[in-house]
């Protein structure tokens, strides 16, 4: 596409690794996991032992009764979005808000709100449901609250494609800015699914890792031959994406450019990933960025730590990158922040940008015995510090067969 380049001028993140970007990056650099044993009131009879639960006090972020009218996922979303906006220095009050959009992603929206409603109705036979239940639970609740909070009246979209939702939001937002439909878009995603019924549904799929016997924080082991499945997380992340000249005109600091977006569907199976679909998504993103595979200097893998998924992703990476797959650092930071599902793509894009900002490549924590079937160039256990890459890739592969790949380049 033409001359309109899309800059990242602000980043925000909320997760089990902390409630702001600084804490998040510090934890990643120190390979500190946010995975822990879930308290009894969160897991109830679901059988799920561990999760990456955010240390979250709504009263610290919202005044008075406001938090009570926002689902936990929306609370995360507003907080991450506010951080991204503040970090960008873009003041919506003096900007043309008709030209600023919101593109968001979430898997399930306000799951806690639904959980509470079902509990009231089925559990206590009390059908006096909260009048705000609908607007708190709807999947666009987070996106709409972000738009309302800052009066962002430009293009608006909400994506729900399971684990690729917020990566898709970033990719589509990038295209919207390039197409001239907006000067800036607050793009990201959020998820808060650590509630008993949702946990039980995940447990029923038999894809969740049990607690590590010695160290619950080490329960998620992507690419390791001992891996036992994914660990669910929660939180949100947001990027303030901005057309380059708009950012330059106000003297904003540009962290990176989003230059490549691949989007394909396996069209094969609801839960089993497909190498071909992943390969095509990575190739699309590279083609859009105009980069050869070896130009990528870090890959933030989808790497959920499922038995099947990790092998297929590594095969796909090898198919795309050839010999370079043994040179390009790859890590799955889900080992620390857990799987944010609809919020994963945005949070992991924030991770992928970390080498640009800090010169640090975050590791796959707990990777001690690499599975020979996952032979790529792992950043195992500890972060690496060295040359700052020129380009990075982030993979998001979802249930339902959606594959989204994003590429960012150094500013």
């Amino acid at each position: 596409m033409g001359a309109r380049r899309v800059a990242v001028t602000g980043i925000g993140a909320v997760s089990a690794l902390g409630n702001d970007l600084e804490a998040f990056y510090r934890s990643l650099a120190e390979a500190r996991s946010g995975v822990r044993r879930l308290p009894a009131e969160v897991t109830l009879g679901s059988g799920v032992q561990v999760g990456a639960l955010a240390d979250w006090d709504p009263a610290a972020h919202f005044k008075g009764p406001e938090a009570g009218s926002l689902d936990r996922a929306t609370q995360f979303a507003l907080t991450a979005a506010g951080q991204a906006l503040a970090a960008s220095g873009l003041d919506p009050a003096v900007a043309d808000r008709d030209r600023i959009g919101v593109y968001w992603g979430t898997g399930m929206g306000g799951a806690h709100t639904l959980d509470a409603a079902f509990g009231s109705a089925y559990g206590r036979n009390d059908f006096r449901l909260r009048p705000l239940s609908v607007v708190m639970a709807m999947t666009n609740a987070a996106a709409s609250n972000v738009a309302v909070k800052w009066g962002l009246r430009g293009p608006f979209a909400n994506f729900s494609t399971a684990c690729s939702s917020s990566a898709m939001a970033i990719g589509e937002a990038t295209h919207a800015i390039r197409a001239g439909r907006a000067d800036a878009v607050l793009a990201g995603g959020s998820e808060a699914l650590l509630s008993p019924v949702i946990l039980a549904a995940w447990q029923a799929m038999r894809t969740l890792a049990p607690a590590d016997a010695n160290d619950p924080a080490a329960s998620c082991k992507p690419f390791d031959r001992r891996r036992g499945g994914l660990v669910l997380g929660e939180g949100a992340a947001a990027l303030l994406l901005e057309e380059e000249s708009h950012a330059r005109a106000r003297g904003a600091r540009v962290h990176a450019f989003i230059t490549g977006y691949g989007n394909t569907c396996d069209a094969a199976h609801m839960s089993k990933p497909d190498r071909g679909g992943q390969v095509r998504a990575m190739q699309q993103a590279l083609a859009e960025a105009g980069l050869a595979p070896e130009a990528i200097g870090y890959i933030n893998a989808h790497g959920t730590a499922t038995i099947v998924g990790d092998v297929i992703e590594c095969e796909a990476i090898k198919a795309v990158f050839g010999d370079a797959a043994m040179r390009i650092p790859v890590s799955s930071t889900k080992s620390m922040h857990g799987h944010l599902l609809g919020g994963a793509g945005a949070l992991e894009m924030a991770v992928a940008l970390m080498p640009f900002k800090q010169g640090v490549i975050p590791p796959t924590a707990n990777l001690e015995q690499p599975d020979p079937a996952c032979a790529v160039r792992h950043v195992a256990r500890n972060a690496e510090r060295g040359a700052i890459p020129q380009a990075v890739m982030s993979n998001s592969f979802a249930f339902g067969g959606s594959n989204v790949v994003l590429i960012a380049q150094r500013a």
Partner: protein
Amino acid sequence: MQTLDRIKDLAIKELSLDAGKIDPNAPLADLGVDSLTFIEFMFKVEDEFGVKVSDQDLRGIKCLADLERHIAASLQTAGKA
């Protein structure tokens, strides 16, 4: 405790209203309470007093003083006053 005081206490707790600024005769909107939030508040009032407030009754309640009159009447009818 008087009915109005119990309603005020509940409003302070559930609606985060400032104790010193609650005017029982002020329209609810002036207290910063929107209609949906007030419906939720009514569930708490129902539980507190053990009475039912129908949607029709709700339409006639514009301020906390209206609510007090309605609750007092309901309690009297129910023989609880």
